[in-house]
Protein backbone atom coordinates (compact mmCIF):
# COMPACT_ATOMS: atom_id res chain seq x y z
CA UNK A 1 0.00 0.00 0.00
CA UNK A 2 1.35 3.38 -1.00
CA UNK A 3 2.00 6.15 1.47
CA UNK A 4 -0.77 8.18 -0.17
CA UNK A 5 -3.29 5.37 0.29
CA UNK A 6 -2.21 4.93 3.88
CA UNK A 7 -2.63 8.65 4.50
CA UNK A 8 -6.11 8.69 2.97
CA UNK A 9 -7.12 5.60 4.92
CA UNK A 10 -5.79 7.17 8.12
CA UNK A 11 -7.63 10.41 7.45
CA UNK A 12 -10.86 8.55 6.77
CA UNK A 13 -10.47 6.51 9.96
CA UNK A 14 -9.77 9.58 12.06
CA UNK A 15 -12.67 11.41 10.45
CA UNK A 16 -15.04 8.53 11.05
CA UNK A 17 -14.02 8.47 14.68
CA UNK A 18 -14.32 12.22 15.11
CA UNK A 19 -17.41 13.14 13.14
CA UNK A 20 -19.97 11.21 15.17
CA UNK A 21 -18.67 12.94 18.27
CA UNK A 22 -18.66 16.32 16.61
CA UNK A 23 -22.06 15.57 15.15
CA UNK A 24 -23.47 14.67 18.53
CA UNK A 25 -22.03 17.78 20.09
CA UNK A 26 -23.50 19.94 17.39
CA UNK A 27 -26.88 18.25 17.24
CA UNK A 28 -29.63 20.77 17.90
CA UNK A 29 -30.71 20.84 21.53
CA UNK A 30 -34.22 19.61 22.24
CA UNK A 31 -35.30 23.15 22.98
CA UNK A 32 -34.15 24.16 19.51
CA UNK A 33 -36.49 21.86 17.60
CA UNK A 34 -39.55 23.68 16.28
CA UNK A 35 -41.90 21.47 18.30
CA UNK A 36 -40.17 21.96 21.63
CA UNK A 37 -39.48 25.64 20.95
CA UNK A 38 -43.20 26.21 20.48
CA UNK A 39 -43.94 24.10 23.56
CA UNK A 40 -41.50 26.15 25.63
CA UNK A 41 -43.13 29.35 24.39
CA UNK A 42 -46.55 28.12 25.50
CA UNK A 43 -45.17 26.92 28.83
CA UNK A 44 -43.73 30.40 29.40
CA UNK A 45 -47.14 31.90 28.57
CA UNK A 46 -48.74 29.56 31.11
CA UNK A 47 -46.15 30.57 33.71
CA UNK A 48 -47.27 34.18 33.15
CA UNK A 49 -50.90 33.19 33.69
CA UNK A 50 -49.87 31.41 36.87
CA UNK A 51 -47.91 34.42 38.08
CA UNK A 52 -50.83 36.75 37.46
CA UNK A 53 -53.25 34.41 39.24
CA UNK A 54 -50.78 34.02 42.07
CA UNK A 55 -50.86 37.76 42.58
CA UNK A 56 -54.65 37.71 42.91
CA UNK A 57 -54.75 35.39 45.92
CA UNK A 58 -53.26 35.82 49.39
CA UNK A 59 -49.57 34.96 49.39
CA UNK A 60 -48.67 31.62 50.85
CA UNK A 61 -46.16 31.62 53.64
CA UNK A 62 -45.14 28.88 55.99
CA UNK A 63 -47.96 28.38 58.43
CA UNK A 64 -49.14 26.25 61.33
CA UNK A 65 -52.67 26.43 59.98
CA UNK A 66 -53.35 23.78 57.30
CA UNK A 67 -56.57 25.60 56.37
CA UNK A 68 -54.45 28.42 54.97
CA UNK A 69 -52.58 25.97 52.75
CA UNK A 70 -55.64 24.21 51.39
CA UNK A 71 -57.72 27.35 50.91
CA UNK A 72 -54.85 29.06 49.16
CA UNK A 73 -54.34 26.10 46.84
CA UNK A 74 -58.04 26.10 45.99
CA UNK A 75 -58.10 29.86 45.43
CA UNK A 76 -55.09 29.70 43.13
CA UNK A 77 -56.64 26.82 41.19
CA UNK A 78 -59.87 28.79 40.78
CA UNK A 79 -58.01 31.90 39.62
CA UNK A 80 -56.11 29.89 37.00
CA UNK A 81 -59.28 28.12 35.87
CA UNK A 82 -60.97 31.49 35.45
CA UNK A 83 -58.05 32.79 33.41
CA UNK A 84 -58.03 29.63 31.27
CA UNK A 85 -61.75 28.96 31.11
CA UNK A 86 -61.59 27.98 27.46
CA UNK A 87 -58.39 25.94 27.70
CA UNK A 88 -58.39 22.74 25.66
CA UNK A 89 -56.09 19.72 25.46
CA UNK A 90 -53.22 20.61 23.15
CA UNK A 91 -53.13 24.29 24.08
CA UNK A 92 -49.70 23.82 25.63
CA UNK A 93 -48.56 20.44 24.37
CA UNK A 94 -49.14 21.06 20.68
CA UNK A 95 -49.73 18.20 18.27
CA UNK A 96 -46.11 18.38 17.12
CA UNK A 97 -44.77 18.44 20.69
CA UNK A 98 -47.11 15.59 21.62
CA UNK A 99 -45.70 13.49 18.78
CA UNK A 100 -42.17 14.24 19.95
CA UNK A 101 -42.95 13.44 23.59
CA UNK A 102 -44.73 10.22 22.65
CA UNK A 103 -41.73 9.14 20.63
CA UNK A 104 -39.33 9.85 23.51
CA UNK A 105 -41.52 8.18 26.13
CA UNK A 106 -42.24 5.09 24.02
CA UNK A 107 -38.56 4.74 23.21
CA UNK A 108 -37.65 4.97 26.87
CA UNK A 109 -40.40 2.56 27.93
CA UNK A 110 -39.56 0.02 25.25
CA UNK A 111 -35.89 0.08 26.21
CA UNK A 112 -36.79 -1.26 29.64
CA UNK A 113 -36.76 -4.85 30.76
CA UNK A 114 -39.69 -6.36 32.63
CA UNK A 115 -38.51 -5.26 36.07
CA UNK A 116 -37.77 -1.75 34.89
CA UNK A 117 -41.21 -1.47 33.27
CA UNK A 118 -42.76 -2.48 36.57
CA UNK A 119 -41.01 0.47 38.20
CA UNK A 120 -42.12 2.77 35.40
CA UNK A 121 -45.73 1.74 36.05
CA UNK A 122 -45.49 1.68 39.84
CA UNK A 123 -48.67 3.21 41.29
CA UNK A 124 -49.56 4.94 38.04
CA UNK A 125 -53.04 6.44 38.51
CA UNK A 126 -55.90 5.25 36.32
CA UNK A 127 -58.12 8.27 35.87
CA UNK A 128 -58.99 10.05 32.66
CA UNK A 129 -57.50 13.56 32.87
CA UNK A 130 -59.32 16.78 32.02
CA UNK A 131 -57.81 20.21 31.55
CA UNK A 132 -58.35 22.43 34.60
CA UNK A 133 -59.41 19.59 36.90
CA UNK A 134 -57.97 19.40 40.39
CA UNK A 135 -55.66 16.42 40.65
CA UNK A 136 -57.80 13.86 42.52
CA UNK A 137 -56.49 13.43 46.06
CA UNK A 138 -57.51 9.78 46.04
CA UNK A 139 -54.74 9.03 43.54
CA UNK A 140 -51.03 9.12 44.31
CA UNK A 141 -48.54 10.91 42.09
CA UNK A 142 -46.51 8.35 40.21
CA UNK A 143 -42.78 8.81 40.51
CA UNK A 144 -41.69 10.36 37.27
CA UNK A 145 -39.12 8.18 35.47
CA UNK A 146 -35.76 9.84 36.00
CA UNK A 147 -34.36 9.12 32.49
CA UNK A 148 -37.29 11.00 30.96
CA UNK A 149 -36.45 14.10 32.94
CA UNK A 150 -33.20 14.17 31.01
CA UNK A 151 -34.83 14.11 27.59
CA UNK A 152 -38.07 16.06 27.99
CA UNK A 153 -37.93 19.86 28.03
CA UNK A 154 -37.18 21.44 31.38
CA UNK A 155 -40.22 22.98 33.03
CA UNK A 156 -40.50 26.05 35.26
CA UNK A 157 -40.91 25.50 39.00
CA UNK A 158 -44.69 25.84 38.88
CA UNK A 159 -45.13 22.92 36.49
CA UNK A 160 -44.17 19.30 36.46
CA UNK A 161 -44.83 16.27 34.30
CA UNK A 162 -46.63 13.30 35.75
CA UNK A 163 -47.60 9.90 34.39
CA UNK A 164 -51.07 8.45 34.39
CA UNK A 165 -52.15 5.18 32.87
CA UNK A 166 -50.95 5.73 29.28
CA UNK A 167 -51.12 9.51 29.66
CA UNK A 168 -48.70 12.30 30.38
CA UNK A 169 -50.07 15.30 32.24
CA UNK A 170 -48.68 18.72 32.95
CA UNK A 171 -49.61 19.60 36.50
CA UNK A 172 -49.48 22.98 38.21
CA UNK A 173 -47.66 22.09 41.41
CA UNK A 174 -48.90 25.00 43.50
CA UNK A 175 -52.51 24.96 42.30
CA UNK A 176 -52.63 21.16 42.03
CA UNK A 177 -54.50 21.25 38.73
CA UNK A 178 -54.03 19.53 35.38
CA UNK A 179 -53.11 22.16 32.80
CA UNK A 180 -52.68 19.90 29.76
CA UNK A 181 -52.22 16.25 28.85
CA UNK A 182 -51.59 13.79 26.06
CA UNK A 183 -52.82 10.22 25.78
CA UNK A 184 -51.28 7.03 24.42
CA UNK A 185 -47.74 7.77 25.54
CA UNK A 186 -46.33 4.26 25.96
Amino acid at each position, binding site marked *: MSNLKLSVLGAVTVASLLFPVIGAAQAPAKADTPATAEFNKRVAAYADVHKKADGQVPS*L*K*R*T*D*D*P*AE*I*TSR*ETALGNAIRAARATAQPGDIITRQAAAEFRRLIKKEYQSRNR*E*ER*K*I*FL*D*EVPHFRPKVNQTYP*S*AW*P*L*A*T*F*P*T*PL*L*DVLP*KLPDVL*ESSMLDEALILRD*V*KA*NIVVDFILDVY
Partner: protein
Amino acid sequence: MPRAILRRLVLAAAVVGGWLAAPIAQDLALPLKPNSVRFAVIGDNGTGEKAEYELAAQMANYHEKFPFTFVIMNGDNLYGGERPQDFVNKFEAPYKTLLAAKVDFFATLGNHDDPNQRFYKPFNMGGQRYYTYNKGNVRFFSLDSNYMDPVQLAWLEKELKASGSDWKIPYFHHPLYSSGMHGSQIDLRNVLEPLFIKYGVDVVFSGHEHFYQRIKPQQGITYFVSGAGGQLRRGDIRKADFTALGYDQDQSFMLVEIADKELTFQAISRTGQTVDKGFIVQRAGAEPIVVGGSTPASPNPLPKSPETPAPAPQSPAPNK
Protein backbone atom coordinates in the same frame (compact mmCIF):
# COMPACT_ATOMS: atom_id res chain seq x y z
CA MET B 1 -53.63 -40.00 62.12
CA PRO B 2 -50.19 -41.25 61.12
CA ARG B 3 -47.60 -40.72 63.83
CA ALA B 4 -45.25 -38.70 61.55
CA ILE B 5 -47.96 -36.18 60.74
CA LEU B 6 -48.99 -35.97 64.40
CA ARG B 7 -45.37 -35.32 65.37
CA ARG B 8 -45.12 -32.54 62.78
CA LEU B 9 -48.34 -30.95 64.05
CA VAL B 10 -47.12 -31.03 67.65
CA LEU B 11 -43.80 -29.55 66.57
CA ALA B 12 -45.51 -26.84 64.55
CA ALA B 13 -47.80 -26.03 67.49
CA ALA B 14 -44.80 -25.79 69.80
CA VAL B 15 -42.99 -23.45 67.42
CA VAL B 16 -46.04 -21.24 66.93
CA GLY B 17 -46.78 -21.34 70.65
CA GLY B 18 -43.23 -20.39 71.53
CA TRP B 19 -43.35 -17.61 68.98
CA LEU B 20 -46.64 -16.23 70.29
CA ALA B 21 -45.57 -16.58 73.91
CA ALA B 22 -42.26 -14.83 73.29
CA PRO B 23 -41.72 -12.07 75.81
CA ILE B 24 -42.46 -8.62 74.50
CA ALA B 25 -39.17 -6.84 74.73
CA GLN B 26 -39.53 -3.22 75.71
CA ASP B 27 -35.91 -2.72 76.54
CA LEU B 28 -33.95 0.09 75.12
CA ALA B 29 -31.02 -1.06 73.02
CA LEU B 30 -29.47 2.37 72.61
CA PRO B 31 -26.47 3.58 74.59
CA LEU B 32 -27.75 7.06 75.55
CA LYS B 33 -24.30 8.58 75.26
CA PRO B 34 -23.84 12.20 76.27
CA ASN B 35 -24.31 14.74 73.47
CA SER B 36 -25.40 12.08 71.00
CA VAL B 37 -27.81 12.82 68.13
CA ARG B 38 -31.08 11.02 68.87
CA PHE B 39 -33.97 10.66 66.50
CA ALA B 40 -36.85 8.44 65.44
CA VAL B 41 -37.79 7.30 61.93
CA ILE B 42 -41.28 6.74 60.57
CA GLY B 43 -42.66 6.33 57.09
CA ASP B 44 -46.00 5.87 55.37
CA ASN B 45 -47.67 6.88 58.58
CA GLY B 46 -50.45 9.32 57.64
CA THR B 47 -53.47 7.03 57.62
CA GLY B 48 -55.32 8.49 60.59
CA GLU B 49 -56.25 4.96 61.56
CA LYS B 50 -56.00 3.15 64.87
CA ALA B 51 -52.66 1.51 64.09
CA GLU B 52 -51.01 4.88 63.44
CA TYR B 53 -52.25 6.16 66.80
CA GLU B 54 -51.06 3.04 68.60
CA LEU B 55 -47.63 3.22 67.04
CA ALA B 56 -47.41 6.92 67.88
CA ALA B 57 -48.29 6.04 71.50
CA GLN B 58 -45.50 3.47 71.50
CA MET B 59 -43.12 6.12 70.18
CA ALA B 60 -44.18 8.38 73.04
CA ASN B 61 -43.50 5.54 75.51
CA TYR B 62 -40.01 5.12 74.16
CA HIS B 63 -39.48 8.86 74.15
CA GLU B 64 -39.59 8.73 77.94
CA LYS B 65 -36.70 6.26 77.96
CA PHE B 66 -34.91 7.66 74.95
CA PRO B 67 -35.57 11.37 74.67
CA PHE B 68 -35.13 11.81 70.95
CA THR B 69 -35.38 15.40 69.84
CA PHE B 70 -36.68 14.93 66.31
CA VAL B 71 -38.36 12.51 63.95
CA ILE B 72 -37.59 12.04 60.27
CA MET B 73 -40.59 11.17 58.13
CA ASN B 74 -39.99 9.05 55.04
CA GLY B 75 -43.06 10.30 53.17
CA ASP B 76 -46.74 9.54 52.66
CA ASN B 77 -47.41 11.88 55.53
CA LEU B 78 -51.11 12.27 54.67
CA TYR B 79 -53.06 9.65 52.77
CA GLY B 80 -56.24 10.27 50.84
CA GLY B 81 -56.66 14.02 51.22
CA GLU B 82 -55.11 17.29 52.29
CA ARG B 83 -58.07 18.92 53.99
CA PRO B 84 -57.36 20.79 57.23
CA GLN B 85 -58.86 17.93 59.24
CA ASP B 86 -56.47 15.50 57.52
CA PHE B 87 -53.52 17.39 58.96
CA VAL B 88 -55.14 17.09 62.37
CA ASN B 89 -56.36 13.48 62.25
CA LYS B 90 -53.33 12.04 60.51
CA PHE B 91 -50.55 14.06 62.11
CA GLU B 92 -51.34 16.48 64.91
CA ALA B 93 -53.57 14.17 66.93
CA PRO B 94 -51.55 10.95 66.77
CA TYR B 95 -48.27 12.70 67.59
CA LYS B 96 -49.79 15.12 70.08
CA THR B 97 -47.66 13.88 72.99
CA LEU B 98 -44.44 14.15 71.03
CA LEU B 99 -45.34 17.55 69.61
CA ALA B 100 -46.15 18.76 73.12
CA ALA B 101 -42.73 17.51 74.22
CA LYS B 102 -41.20 19.81 71.56
CA VAL B 103 -40.09 16.96 69.32
CA ASP B 104 -39.55 18.32 65.81
CA PHE B 105 -40.69 16.45 62.70
CA PHE B 106 -38.75 16.75 59.43
CA ALA B 107 -40.86 15.48 56.56
CA THR B 108 -40.07 14.32 53.07
CA LEU B 109 -42.65 14.04 50.30
CA GLY B 110 -44.12 10.67 49.37
CA ASN B 111 -46.16 9.87 46.30
CA HIS B 112 -49.36 10.40 48.27
CA ASP B 113 -48.33 13.87 49.42
CA ASP B 114 -49.27 17.20 47.92
CA PRO B 115 -46.04 19.21 47.53
CA ASN B 116 -47.77 22.15 49.23
CA GLN B 117 -47.18 20.31 52.51
CA ARG B 118 -43.83 22.06 52.39
CA PHE B 119 -45.56 25.18 53.69
CA TYR B 120 -46.87 23.39 56.79
CA LYS B 121 -44.58 24.60 59.57
CA PRO B 122 -44.71 21.46 61.75
CA PHE B 123 -43.15 19.50 58.87
CA ASN B 124 -40.08 21.80 59.00
CA MET B 125 -39.49 21.74 55.25
CA GLY B 126 -38.77 25.46 55.05
CA GLY B 127 -41.10 25.84 52.09
CA GLN B 128 -38.88 23.55 49.97
CA ARG B 129 -39.55 20.21 48.32
CA TYR B 130 -36.02 19.12 49.20
CA TYR B 131 -33.80 20.56 51.87
CA THR B 132 -30.90 19.89 54.20
CA TYR B 133 -30.15 20.55 57.86
CA ASN B 134 -27.58 19.78 60.52
CA LYS B 135 -27.96 18.00 63.83
CA GLY B 136 -24.70 17.75 65.76
CA ASN B 137 -22.17 15.95 63.59
CA VAL B 138 -24.84 14.76 61.18
CA ARG B 139 -26.16 16.39 58.01
CA PHE B 140 -29.55 15.24 56.80
CA PHE B 141 -30.77 15.54 53.22
CA SER B 142 -34.51 15.27 52.74
CA LEU B 143 -35.08 14.55 49.04
CA ASP B 144 -38.13 14.55 46.81
CA SER B 145 -37.89 11.16 45.12
CA ASN B 146 -41.14 11.74 43.23
CA TYR B 147 -39.39 14.09 40.84
CA MET B 148 -35.63 13.59 40.78
CA ASP B 149 -34.84 16.08 38.05
CA PRO B 150 -31.38 17.34 37.07
CA VAL B 151 -31.91 20.49 39.16
CA GLN B 152 -32.43 18.51 42.35
CA LEU B 153 -29.51 16.22 41.55
CA ALA B 154 -27.21 19.19 41.00
CA TRP B 155 -28.39 20.67 44.30
CA LEU B 156 -27.76 17.40 46.10
CA GLU B 157 -24.26 17.06 44.71
CA LYS B 158 -23.44 20.65 45.69
CA GLU B 159 -24.73 20.13 49.23
CA LEU B 160 -23.05 16.75 49.69
CA LYS B 161 -19.77 18.18 48.47
CA ALA B 162 -20.01 21.19 50.76
CA SER B 163 -20.93 19.19 53.83
CA GLY B 164 -18.18 18.79 56.35
CA SER B 165 -20.32 16.68 58.66
CA ASP B 166 -19.07 13.33 59.90
CA TRP B 167 -22.30 11.65 58.88
CA LYS B 168 -24.33 12.40 55.79
CA ILE B 169 -27.80 10.87 55.88
CA PRO B 170 -30.16 11.21 52.92
CA TYR B 171 -33.75 10.16 53.33
CA PHE B 172 -36.55 10.03 50.79
CA HIS B 173 -39.65 8.05 50.02
CA HIS B 174 -38.73 5.50 47.36
CA PRO B 175 -36.20 2.84 48.41
CA LEU B 176 -33.21 2.08 46.21
CA TYR B 177 -33.31 -1.48 47.51
CA SER B 178 -36.35 -3.37 48.71
CA SER B 179 -37.97 -6.71 48.11
CA GLY B 180 -41.58 -5.74 48.59
CA MET B 181 -44.46 -5.18 46.22
CA HIS B 182 -42.91 -2.06 44.67
CA GLY B 183 -39.36 -3.37 44.50
CA SER B 184 -36.04 -1.56 44.20
CA GLN B 185 -36.27 1.81 42.47
CA ILE B 186 -33.57 1.24 39.90
CA ASP B 187 -34.01 4.54 38.04
CA LEU B 188 -33.36 6.42 41.24
CA ARG B 189 -30.55 4.12 42.25
CA ASN B 190 -28.77 4.82 38.98
CA VAL B 191 -28.62 8.55 39.67
CA LEU B 192 -28.40 8.67 43.48
CA GLU B 193 -26.10 5.85 44.46
CA PRO B 194 -23.05 7.19 42.58
CA LEU B 195 -23.40 10.46 44.50
CA PHE B 196 -23.80 8.64 47.81
CA ILE B 197 -20.66 6.62 47.15
CA LYS B 198 -18.67 9.60 45.90
CA TYR B 199 -19.46 11.76 48.91
CA GLY B 200 -19.20 9.19 51.68
CA VAL B 201 -22.80 8.52 52.63
CA ASP B 202 -23.04 5.67 55.13
CA VAL B 203 -26.74 5.32 55.84
CA VAL B 204 -29.96 5.97 53.89
CA PHE B 205 -33.58 5.81 55.07
CA SER B 206 -36.64 5.31 52.86
CA GLY B 207 -40.27 4.23 53.06
CA HIS B 208 -42.84 3.39 50.36
CA GLU B 209 -42.86 -0.32 51.21
CA HIS B 210 -45.12 -0.92 54.17
CA PHE B 211 -42.72 -2.86 56.34
CA TYR B 212 -39.30 -2.69 57.97
CA GLN B 213 -36.27 -3.94 56.07
CA ARG B 214 -32.57 -3.62 56.66
CA ILE B 215 -30.44 -4.10 53.57
CA LYS B 216 -26.97 -5.60 53.65
CA PRO B 217 -24.39 -2.89 52.93
CA GLN B 218 -24.41 -2.06 49.25
CA GLN B 219 -21.11 -0.57 48.10
CA GLY B 220 -20.52 0.44 51.68
CA ILE B 221 -23.94 1.98 52.31
CA THR B 222 -26.53 0.58 54.71
CA TYR B 223 -30.10 1.13 53.52
CA PHE B 224 -33.13 0.96 55.77
CA VAL B 225 -36.75 0.79 54.68
CA SER B 226 -39.06 2.06 57.40
CA GLY B 227 -42.51 2.40 55.87
CA ALA B 228 -44.87 0.88 58.39
CA GLY B 229 -45.62 3.93 60.51
CA GLY B 230 -49.33 3.57 59.88
CA GLN B 231 -49.69 1.36 56.86
CA LEU B 232 -48.77 -2.30 56.90
CA ARG B 233 -48.48 -4.83 54.09
CA ARG B 234 -48.25 -8.01 56.09
CA GLY B 235 -46.18 -10.81 54.54
CA ASP B 236 -44.94 -8.62 51.70
CA ILE B 237 -41.19 -9.08 52.18
CA ARG B 238 -40.05 -11.43 49.44
CA LYS B 239 -36.83 -13.34 49.30
CA ALA B 240 -33.85 -11.26 48.15
CA ASP B 241 -30.13 -11.72 48.48
CA PHE B 242 -29.65 -8.17 49.67
CA THR B 243 -31.90 -8.49 52.71
CA ALA B 244 -30.17 -8.51 56.09
CA LEU B 245 -33.43 -8.60 58.02
CA GLY B 246 -37.08 -7.82 57.49
CA TYR B 247 -40.20 -7.46 59.58
CA ASP B 248 -43.66 -7.24 58.04
CA GLN B 249 -45.97 -8.49 60.76
CA ASP B 250 -46.89 -5.23 62.44
CA GLN B 251 -46.44 -1.48 62.22
CA SER B 252 -42.99 -0.31 63.26
CA PHE B 253 -40.71 2.66 63.77
CA MET B 254 -37.00 3.13 64.37
CA LEU B 255 -34.92 4.82 67.01
CA VAL B 256 -31.42 5.95 66.09
CA GLU B 257 -28.56 7.33 68.13
CA ILE B 258 -25.37 8.71 66.64
CA ALA B 259 -22.35 9.32 68.80
CA ASP B 260 -19.06 10.14 67.16
CA LYS B 261 -18.36 7.36 64.62
CA GLU B 262 -21.06 4.96 65.76
CA LEU B 263 -24.71 4.79 64.80
CA THR B 264 -26.93 2.54 66.92
CA PHE B 265 -30.38 1.56 65.72
CA GLN B 266 -33.41 -0.20 67.11
CA ALA B 267 -36.57 -1.08 65.20
CA ILE B 268 -39.67 -1.43 67.35
CA SER B 269 -43.12 -2.79 66.61
CA ARG B 270 -46.48 -1.34 67.56
CA THR B 271 -46.58 -3.63 70.60
CA GLY B 272 -43.14 -2.52 71.73
CA GLN B 273 -41.28 -5.57 70.52
CA THR B 274 -37.72 -4.98 69.36
CA VAL B 275 -37.61 -6.42 65.86
CA ASP B 276 -34.09 -5.41 64.98
CA LYS B 277 -31.19 -3.72 66.67
CA GLY B 278 -27.52 -3.17 66.05
CA PHE B 279 -24.92 -0.62 65.25
CA ILE B 280 -23.01 0.71 62.29
CA VAL B 281 -19.46 1.95 62.56
CA GLN B 282 -18.72 4.72 60.14
CA ARG B 283 -16.42 3.47 57.44
CA ALA B 284 -13.14 5.07 56.60
CA GLY B 285 -12.86 4.15 52.96
CA ALA B 286 -13.77 0.53 53.66
CA GLU B 287 -16.89 -1.50 54.17
CA PRO B 288 -18.84 -0.52 57.27
CA ILE B 289 -19.10 -2.74 60.27
CA VAL B 290 -22.76 -3.53 60.69
CA VAL B 291 -23.86 -5.62 63.60
CA GLY B 292 -27.50 -6.48 63.82
CA GLY B 293 -29.48 -8.61 66.18
CA SER B 294 -33.13 -9.33 65.91
CA THR B 295 -36.27 -10.85 67.23
CA PRO B 296 -38.35 -10.70 64.09
CA ALA B 297 -41.70 -12.32 63.76
CA SER B 298 -42.13 -12.82 60.07
CA PRO B 299 -42.98 -16.05 58.36
CA ASN B 300 -41.03 -14.99 55.30
CA PRO B 301 -38.00 -17.06 54.42
CA LEU B 302 -35.37 -14.38 54.34
CA PRO B 303 -31.82 -15.32 53.48
CA LYS B 304 -29.28 -15.42 56.23
CA SER B 305 -26.73 -12.71 55.84
CA PRO B 306 -23.14 -13.86 55.99
CA GLU B 307 -22.10 -10.25 56.64
CA THR B 308 -24.34 -9.89 59.63
CA PRO B 309 -23.05 -11.65 62.71
CA ALA B 310 -26.31 -11.91 64.61
CA PRO B 311 -26.17 -12.71 68.29
CA ALA B 312 -28.43 -15.42 69.68
CA PRO B 313 -32.01 -14.30 69.14
CA GLN B 314 -34.17 -13.67 72.17
CA SER B 315 -37.12 -15.41 70.63
CA PRO B 316 -37.72 -17.71 67.66
CA ALA B 317 -36.78 -16.07 64.41
CA PRO B 318 -38.81 -17.92 61.82
CA ASN B 319 -37.65 -15.74 58.97
CA LYS B 320 -34.02 -16.74 59.20
